[in-house]
């Protein structure tokens, strides 16, 4: 029979039937159910197995603190393990499977571990699996993990999508129960911008689970009306099914919004949204979580929180049993009996550990005061309980209330330390919550509903007033005062029976006692030794109970025992939700060069350079290896002409009356007297005298330079220049802006480069060698009047230019250059050929400017101007940087020209062993030179500048290469620079 435990009423829609499966069995529930309530409605009490001992377990709570009812939801790639059934909204087609058992749930082969439990106490692994040492990683740990795990992953990529977002408010109210709604009302009425977030898909908190009256109506009805009122206000954003999971710096909160229902209807919609909420203030109204009492076999299916029994009864119209008993140490537990009676259920017994008179009359129930439950019976479902007075009571559900713990987690996210409050036997927030946060209601320890409502009401008004909004004149909602009295009860002697504290990690009161006996006194040490509170529920139901047991064991106060540290996230958050939409190619944005479309048409092979996508080489049909392509590109460029997109190099326009003085201070070489129309190579040093970046600066007019930087340092150089201007020399009249993207820039290199350019440069612009010599720069026009910039600079060592046009013409210019160059067999070349030619020429680049090399090390000591001060000058004079035996940049060529040379090889003497002590340097860049017909490299070796002609070995132990090389000049091709000037 379907839903045998379902009764009438509740806050569900019993007209809307939903089908779902549990372990393959088709079941029915109603709209408004959670998976847990639907399972209970279908009399499914055994819903999983415990982590370590594979004990049969049932649903314990009705909220996010649930330790037992964790399921695998969905199948295939969509499967998500460790999902709490108590907060999973039921939907049509939901597939749930219990986890952590071998064989059927009702007969778990791994349950044998339960019978071995006397051997498996706290610290068992540490004590037992010590020998042989090497077995831990290879054998013991994999075996343990296999037998004691939570759910399993699909091992497929998660097909669900996730997103993130940013929201801002004056006041974030965390929790939409009676306190949160009261606070939201007054704060919203003041005019402040409010976000009200609640982890439940139905706002109202405990009001939806209890039978309190507020303002003359049912509490749930009051909540519904209040939510509707708030929803109609423009200054209020309601975020249900949204769990705030962390309080971060500067009033920023993380919140995860579950949009599973939307995602199910449209697979393209994100399943969860990770919100970053910027707040001016926050009011924590997160309520409280009930706790258990430790007694023998207190973990059987059917033993649950008293508050959960009321939630299933009142909100979900589910009777969790037919013969329900209540075991409590506080007044709140009695409400369970009252509510059950009101729905026509006979309560078997009420057991209260306190020596007081019964709190109320419960018709038909046996009442036992100053009595405890000491044991229970029933393997897969509760059958009976044993009392401390020796009496046994047949019962199928035991509603337990050990008191309430304020949900103060967020108050500790910035290292607040909870205080103990004896009156309510709970920890309460201290006086140092995160800046901007205040606390109200049960989260603060105000356990009486009427008081919590007033507190929320006042807090909402006060916080809004503090932000300058008007004070609310409304009155708080009224509800009858119901007192809350409690006497702490952490547990009862359980003899040989185990009294469970942490259900999810299978930690018992005995484990805690053993840890204490073995010398673990700190709550943090006990936590780690026993794994208490370290499961996915982070000990929400276990920790305070465990602290109580520890305090009793050690004869100290609760406050002295203290709590462990609360850290975000408050609830488990899927890693996918943190990644959001940044998956695959969307991990970071992509920058495309102006010639990208054209290059794609040429079947270019691209390489990621930072975020840029650059053409690495352009294979032609028939070329089967990249070296064939790159060798061709180099030969063709050096023999005729080649074109390379160099837009990615940083370009900075610098203008102002003091621009040459400014450049003179930031470059190591002289810039004060660069003539207009000339480019100069510039080396920039860090403050400590180490090379930072190199590039060129062209003087376009008296007060205008264009600086180029390397691609990698485009941003950092710009930032450095801004620092120099804003902080070091703010009085200089200097104005700079990046024009990296304003111009599409192409290197046109090779002996025919001028001939090619002359075809597109307008005739009135003379670019002959005489009019436009090596290192010239100027404004020109191309293709009939389009403004352009031309620089006669060369990275390849050939006669070469860099031509820049406004980027709107970048794609077109590439096509025009290729068309105009047909008669010269022009070719495009990529970053690989660019690298080959720069190494052939001996230009230092990224591998050489590695943050350890000075200008002298790079062979550029002669450039350093001794006639001026500049950044890096003083510290560059340090003795250590002037030593002759520093690692100095030189070239290396194999003695046997057929030998392979590898970048990263270490340099050793000819007869030295390959040891660290004998290491003399390394090859930093290495290529095969199609021009010279052998490999060559540049690199660093001790005192290299004076060792040219000496032979050493280049050894790469990782790749098994050991070749003899000659130390030589790094300038392999055209060392005199004649080709540049023709």
């Amino acid at each position, binding site marked *: 029979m379907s839903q045998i435990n379902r009764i009438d009423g509740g806050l569900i829609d019993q007209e809307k039937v939903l089908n779902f499966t549990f372990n393959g069995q088709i079941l029915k529930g109603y709209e408004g159910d959670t998976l847990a309530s639907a399972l209970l409605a279908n009399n499914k009490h055994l819903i999983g197995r415990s982590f370590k001992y594979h004990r049969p377990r049932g649903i314990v709570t009705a909220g996010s603190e649930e330790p037992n009812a964790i399921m695998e939801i969905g199948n295939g790639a969509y499967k998500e393990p460790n999902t709490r059934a108590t907060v999973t909204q039921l939907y049509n087609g939901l597939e749930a499977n219990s986890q952590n058992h071998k064989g059927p749930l009702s007969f778990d082969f791994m349950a044998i571990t339960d019978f071995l439990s006397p051997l498996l106490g706290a610290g068992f692994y540490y004590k037992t699996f010590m020998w042989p040492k090497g077995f831990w990683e290879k054998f013991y740990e994999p075996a343990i993990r296999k037998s004691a795990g939570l759910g399993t992953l699909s091992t497929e990529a998660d097909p669900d999508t996730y997103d993130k977002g940013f929201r801002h408010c004056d006041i974030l109210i965390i929790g939409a129960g009676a306190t949160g709604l009261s606070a939201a009302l007054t704060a919203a009425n003041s005019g402040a911008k409010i976000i009200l977030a609640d982890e439940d898909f139905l706002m109202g908190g405990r009001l939806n689970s209890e039978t309190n009256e507020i303002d003359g109506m049912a509490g749930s009805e009051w909540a519904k009306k209040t939510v509707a009122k708030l929803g109609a206000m423009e200054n209020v954003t309601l975020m249900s099914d949204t769990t705030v999971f962390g309080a971060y710096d500067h009033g920023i909160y993380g919140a995860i919004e579950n949009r599973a229902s939307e995602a199910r209807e449209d697979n393209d919609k994100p399943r969860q949204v990770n919100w970053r909420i910027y707040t001016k203030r926050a009011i924590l109204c997160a309520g409280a979580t009930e706790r258990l009492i430790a007694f023998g076999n207190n973990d059987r299916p059917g033993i649950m929180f008293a508050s959960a029994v009321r939630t299933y009864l009142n909100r979900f119209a589910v009777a969790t049993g037919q013969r329900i008993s209540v075991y409590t140490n506080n007044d709140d537990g009695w409400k369970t009996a009252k509510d059950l009676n009101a729905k026509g259920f006979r309560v078997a017994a009420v057991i209260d550990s306190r020596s007081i008179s019964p709190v109320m009359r419960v018709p038909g129930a046996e009442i036992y005061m100053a009595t405890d439950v000491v044991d229970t019976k029933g393997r897969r479902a509760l059958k009976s309980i044993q009392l401390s007075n020796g009496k046994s009571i047949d019962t199928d559900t035991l509603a337990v209330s050990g008191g309430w713990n304020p949900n103060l987690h967020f108050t500790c996210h910035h290292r607040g330390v909870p205080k103990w409050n004896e009156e309510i036997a709970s920890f309460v927030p201290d006086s140092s919550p995160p800046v901007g946060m205040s606390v109200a209601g049960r989260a603060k320890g105000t356990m009486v509903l009427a008081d919590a409502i007033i507190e929320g009401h006042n807090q909402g008004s006060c916080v809004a007033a503090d932000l300058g909004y008007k004070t609310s004149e409304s009155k708080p909602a009224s509800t009858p005062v119901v007192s809350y009295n409690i006497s702490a009860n952490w547990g009862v002697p359980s003899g040989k029976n185990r009294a469970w504290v942490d259900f999810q990690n299978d930690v018992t009161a005995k484990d805690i006692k053993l840890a204490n006996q073995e010398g673990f006194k700190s709550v943090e040490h006990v936590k780690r030794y026993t794994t208490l509170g370290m499961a996915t529920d982070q000990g929400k139901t276990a920790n305070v109970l465990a602290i109580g047991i520890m305090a009793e064991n050690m004869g100290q106060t609760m406050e002295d025992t203290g709590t462990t540290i609360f850290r975000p996230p408050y609830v488990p958050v899927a890693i996918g939700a943190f990644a959001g939409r940044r998956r695959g190619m969307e991990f970071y944005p992509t920058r495309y060069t102006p010639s990208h479309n054209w290059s794609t048409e040429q079947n270019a092979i691209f390489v990621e350079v930072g975020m840029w996508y650059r053409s690495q080489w352009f294979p032609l049909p028939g070329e089967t290896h990249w070296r064939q392509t790159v060798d061709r590109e180099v030969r063709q460029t050096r023999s005729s002409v080649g074109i390379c997109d160099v837009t990615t190099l940083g370009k900075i326009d610098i*203008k102002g009356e003091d621009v040459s003085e400014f450049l003179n201070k930031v470059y190591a070489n002289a810039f004060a007297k660069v003539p207009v129309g000339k480019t100069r190579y510039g080396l920039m040093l860090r403050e400590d005298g180490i090379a930072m970046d190199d590039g060129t600066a062209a003087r376009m007019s008296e007060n205008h330079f264009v600086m180029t930087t390397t691609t990698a340092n485009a941003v950092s150089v710009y930032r450095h220049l801004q620092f120099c201007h804003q902080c070091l020399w703010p009085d200089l009249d200097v104005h700079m802006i990046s024009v990296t993207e304003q111009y599409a820039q192409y290197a046109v290199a090779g002996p025919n480069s001028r001939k090619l350019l002359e075809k597109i440069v307008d005739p009135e612009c003379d670019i002959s060698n005489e009019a436009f010599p090596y290192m010239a720069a100027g404004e020109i026009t191309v293709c009939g009047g389009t403004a352009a910039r031309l620089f006669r600079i060369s990275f390849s060592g050939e006669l070469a230019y860099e031509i820049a046009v406004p980027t709107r013409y970048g794609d077109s210019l590439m096509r025009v250059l290729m068309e105009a160059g047909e008669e010269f067999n022009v070719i495009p070349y990529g970053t690989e050929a660019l690298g080959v030619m720069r190494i052939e020429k001996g230009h230092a680049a990224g591998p050489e400017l590695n943050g350890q090399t000075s200008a002298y090390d790079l062979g550029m000591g002669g450039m350093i101007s001794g006639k001026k001060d500049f950044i890096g000058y003083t510290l560059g004079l340090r003795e250590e940087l002037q030593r002759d035996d520093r690692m100095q940049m030189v070239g290396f060529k194999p003695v046997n020209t057929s030998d392979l040379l590898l970048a990263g090889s270490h340099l050793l003497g000819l007869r030295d062993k390959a040891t660290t002590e004998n290491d003399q340097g390394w090859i930093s860049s290495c290529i095969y030179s199609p021009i010279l017909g052998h490999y060559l490299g540049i690199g660093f070796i001790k005192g290299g500048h004076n060792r040219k002609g000496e032979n050493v070995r280049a050894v790469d132990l990782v790749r098994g290469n050991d070749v003899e090389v000659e130390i030589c000049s790094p300038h392999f091709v055209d060392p005199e620079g004649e080709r540049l000037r023709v």
Partner: protein
Amino acid sequence: MSDYELIKESPLGGAEHEFDGVTVAEVIDQSLVMVALPRDRAVDIESAMGESCGLSIPAMGQSTKSSDASVTLWRLQKNQVLAYFSYDGDDAEVNLAERFDAPAYYTDQSDTWGMIRVSGERSRDVLERICPIDLDPSVFTLGSVSRTVMEHIGTIIFRDGDDSYVLLTMRSFSRSMLHAIEVSVKNVL
């Protein structure tokens, strides 16, 4: 007469997409020029711009409009303003210098940036998925401008209408930014 002709192309080829409640369109009829204020000349320049165009230098994070509303100045830095104006010619720098007739340093930025307008009643719902700054109409008022980071991309955002925002990203990032906006639209609408 040259044998070759250069054809201009906007960063996104004039992309325009209409969705229910949101329009996403590349802005192709505006130019952008950086106007740097030489040392000790801000007052002179403001006076000249005021005379020629009726413009004043805006407060930080704000904008001002010329008397004919064709030029908007954005202030994002102490010693410079950005001029956003209706012009699609190649010589925006010269054009603006002539309009202003003020002794500033002008640097064309029109090709540096890809500009995308996100407009419509759901524009803020879409943008809150990528934009970390508060776009509440009472906070980011009409004419506000801010520099921020969206999806790891440095972005300038300018509110040019009640429900209309122009996003500027470095040109090479344009496709990524358009994609980010489209993903937001897909996720939200």
